[in-house]
């Protein structure tokens, strides 16, 4: 068995907020490693600090203390230009809401993100944007504005946008939180498909249907990682058994 390569590492990660004269530690001295090729899912009760951890790891939010490294480089303390370049070149984000730019079409939303990277020329960006939107099954809606498409279509376009620059890490914060059952299934299939092709994914979710797609599950409680479980790559026919397995694990975590 080959040893897993660490792609992201957090040491002594803390995030605190002032609260009624005291300090509320949302993240409390977290040490964590994320491995290359994993579909990592962070779970936990509401207010456990899941999203805070995701955004602290992604550099979207600055931790109060601690260090986050990505591929040997420190994210913490980077200057604005450097963090912007990291977001453009290495990180992709999918939020609970699609968060598309309201005055750009789906195609343009994907394309503009591609233009930020130095990896491709304009023509190549356009081709890849079309291809990704095709893969996400939104090619027919690609010339529409976000306000003219369904929530599922918008979220799939958001995944295409996140993937346009072939990010080293795709961060997803409750990506199915605002979707109906059918759209949820489609989005999770897309993410699973991407991971199968080698895409690193770090996702925060409450949803059991989303959690079973993980190859590694982390459980967060009171700002600390208190549990971890690994699973083989997802296969549709094993969905039920994985669900039971995850449920059992979560029960052990007193979820």
């Amino acid at each position, binding site marked *: 068995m080959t040893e897993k390569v660490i792609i992201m590492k957090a040491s002594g990660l803390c995030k605190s907020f002032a609260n009624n004269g005291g300090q509320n530690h949302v993240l409390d001295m977290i040490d964590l490693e994320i491995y290359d090729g994993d579909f990592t899912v962070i779970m936990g009760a509401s207010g456990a600090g899941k999203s805070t951890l995701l*955004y602290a790891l992604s550099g*979207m939010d600055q931790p109060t203390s601690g260090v986050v490294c990505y591929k040997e480089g420190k994210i913490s303390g980077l200057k604005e230009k450097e963090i*912007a370049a990291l*977001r453009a070149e290495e990180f992709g*984000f999918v*939020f609970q809401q699609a968060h598309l730019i309201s005055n750009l079409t789906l195609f343009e939303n994907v394309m*503009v993100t591609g233009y*930020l990277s130095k990896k491709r020329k304009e023509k190549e960006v356009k081709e890849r944007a079309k291809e990704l939107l095709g893969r996400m099954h939104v090619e027919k809606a690609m010339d529409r504005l976000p306000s003219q498409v369904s929530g599922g279509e918008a979220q799939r376009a958001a995944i295409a946008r996140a993937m346009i620059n072939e990010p080293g890490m795709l961060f997803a*914060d*409750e990506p199915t939180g605002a979707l109906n059952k059918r759209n949820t299934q489609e989005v999770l299939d897309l993410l699973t498909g991407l991971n199968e092709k080698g895409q690193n994914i770090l996702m925060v979710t409450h949803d059991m249907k989303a959690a079973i797609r993980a190859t590694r599950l982390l459980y967060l409680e009171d700002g600390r990682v208190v549990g971890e479980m690994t699973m083989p790559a997802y296969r549709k026919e094993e969905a039920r058994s994985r669900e039971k397995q995850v449920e059992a694990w979560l029960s052990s975590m007193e979820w």
Partner: protein
Amino acid sequence: MKYVTLLKANIKAQKGSFIGIGALMFIITISLLAVLTIWKNATDYEEEQLAYIGYGDITCWLTWGADVKELTRQILEIEDVDKVEEQKAIYIGKYYVNGHEGVNGMAQLFTYGEEGYDFHIYNQSITGIEEDPEGLSEGEVYVSPAFCSLYDAQIGDEFLVEIAGEEDTASYTIKGFFEDPSAGSSMMGIKTILINRIDAQKLKERVEEAGQWDKAMNASLLHIFRTKDSTLPLGKLQTQLGERTDLTGYMEFCYSKVSIMGFMLVLQNIFAGFLLVFVVVLLVITMVVIGHSISSSIEQDYVNMGILKAVGFTQGNLMWTQSMQYVLAVLCGMIPGALLSGMLIRLINRLTVTATGMIMPSDLDLPICGAAMGIILILLLGFIVAKTAGIGKITPIRAIRGGAPDVYFKSRFTTRIYQKGLAFHLALRALVSGKKQYISAGAVAALLVFFISLTVRIGSWIGPDGKGLMNSFAAGDYDIGFGCEDKELEKEIQETINRKAKVIVSYEFKMERATINGFECPMNIMSKPEYFNIVEGRSCKYENELLVTDVIAQAIEVGIGDTVLVSYKGRDKEFIITGIYQCANDMGENFGISKEGWEGFESEPVSFYHHYVLEDPSQTKELVALLKEEYGDRADIDENTWSGLESILTAMQALEIFMYVITAIFILVAVYLTGSKILYKEQHDMGIYKSLGFTAGKLRTCFALRFFVVAVAGSVLGNILSGLLTDPLTGTMLKMFGISSFESTLSLFYMIFSGAVVSGLFLAFSYIAAGKIKKVEPEILIVE
């Protein structure tokens, strides 16, 4: 109480808009009240002071030898004349102040302390009137403060008059300055000097002895007063004086009180009119900004207002609260503006005393200022109430469901986005998507560029050396003029001019005073009448033809094709009007005839002035200096200039600077108000852009570029507007001052320059205003 709570909350939430609108209203109020007060005070004070120094409704400057008693008798026979008063004076053709030759006109010397004629003497710092002024000792004179701006005169400087050429002069010392409402302005060629009684007597005797009346003359002024119940217009009375008395034969010139006031206040009136238009433009801009601010606020507070409606507030309650918020902002600008306008007026009056020659009162004219403020307030109130009517469309249910739908509809007109120049293309897209939001910024840019462009057009018409303006005062264009009695010398000067410069046109010119249909005014005589500045019709080719100005045509109610009677030196002759020409001399009250036409009156050989138009006008100054050096003692050499020109040019430059400063402030406030609303609305999109890898700098650039593009579009529109409207607007205004033909051009450079200044300011200020983007973090997208 519920209103107060809401009002306080609204003002707190939108303090930026509140302060911005207050600032704009402050500028408008302070400028408007200052302009109105200066204009009204100057007019009233000038009229009052003319009466104080004894000037009548009409004043005639008589020549030497006039039979004053007989003329007075004849004048008093006119039913509308109440009384006639004689004021003794000595006219001086050439004088020097501190070594500088007095420009463009004569000086009239009055005896200080003469009974019935009092003058206000200024204190040494020219900041107020001396209550108990010292009398003049022998060898001392009082002069107008305009001498300070014209000749850099100071107390103790020499004032020298020529009695009969360079050899026969009388020298005096300037003791101080006095208020001269009749000719004190630096705009006027003629100047009044107050002299000691003994000096006056001595000078009179020397003038009498020299007998060179073209250089110095003992004469009188006749002040003619209308009866109190007379309804006869002054123009008509002036015509009757020409028709029913022998005044015409003994007059240097004759002006009504209105004309003197027009000459004295020409600068104030032109700039007051000009600034008034500017203030109106600023008011329109402020309304555009308020309109945008109200619409954005309603959109921004949609949910809150819906909730307030749900809990029982009526549409009227909410409209009242919103309106009051803006009315308060307006009042917060207007009240300090009104209070501080007095200071500004005092400052302007103090700074312009050497140009106007008078210390104008600085008290606010309450009826006019109150009326102006009331009108503005009512106008803005109506506008604000109309704009807040949009609150009626808010329904509680829609508000609770998330407010006004933030939907961008796909427009038929859209722009593509390219990798190269991404920030610019995104800016264009933002503009196309949200065009309504940027209309106000575009309108502000268009209006400001329009006005700057209008000013620059007028400035370029005046010309850097004032030539354009001078040409409108001259009957025909010219660069150099000279006149002398000696025929040999005349020939020599002509040869020198032709040797030193290439002359395109030369003609003979003379200005005399005559009456046309009884109306006394200057008569311009030209040997080549085709060089009169014709506005309409054709030139006066034949000896029985003449040209009139628009002003004269209206004053004596004649037009092209009409026959008029011209009286000159006791002879009458009929002429046909063949055209209207442009000459603003004497506020446009003059007419022009050919030399052949004039010869019908005068059989004696008379020397004319010679006017020259040079191929290269830049040679003028050098050539004039050379001619003055060689022939200055034997001939009058002049270039096409005028004593007040410097003041006009300086004022024009100051006006341009003032307008650029005000423009900058208005752009700053307009961009801040519009920009902050747009930024607030787009902070979510900014968060998304940042999460994708856009830097704050790139987003700020993109944001600023939107305003830049809008400003460029507005600038183009402003330049087009200026091209279409400058000539009719300015022409109408200048007609009041006798300039009937105004045609402006604007070089491509200035078009681009004014647009570039405004667009550049929009770019810079919007970039600064977009500094808030730095604080927008992608965390805004996080839903916990």
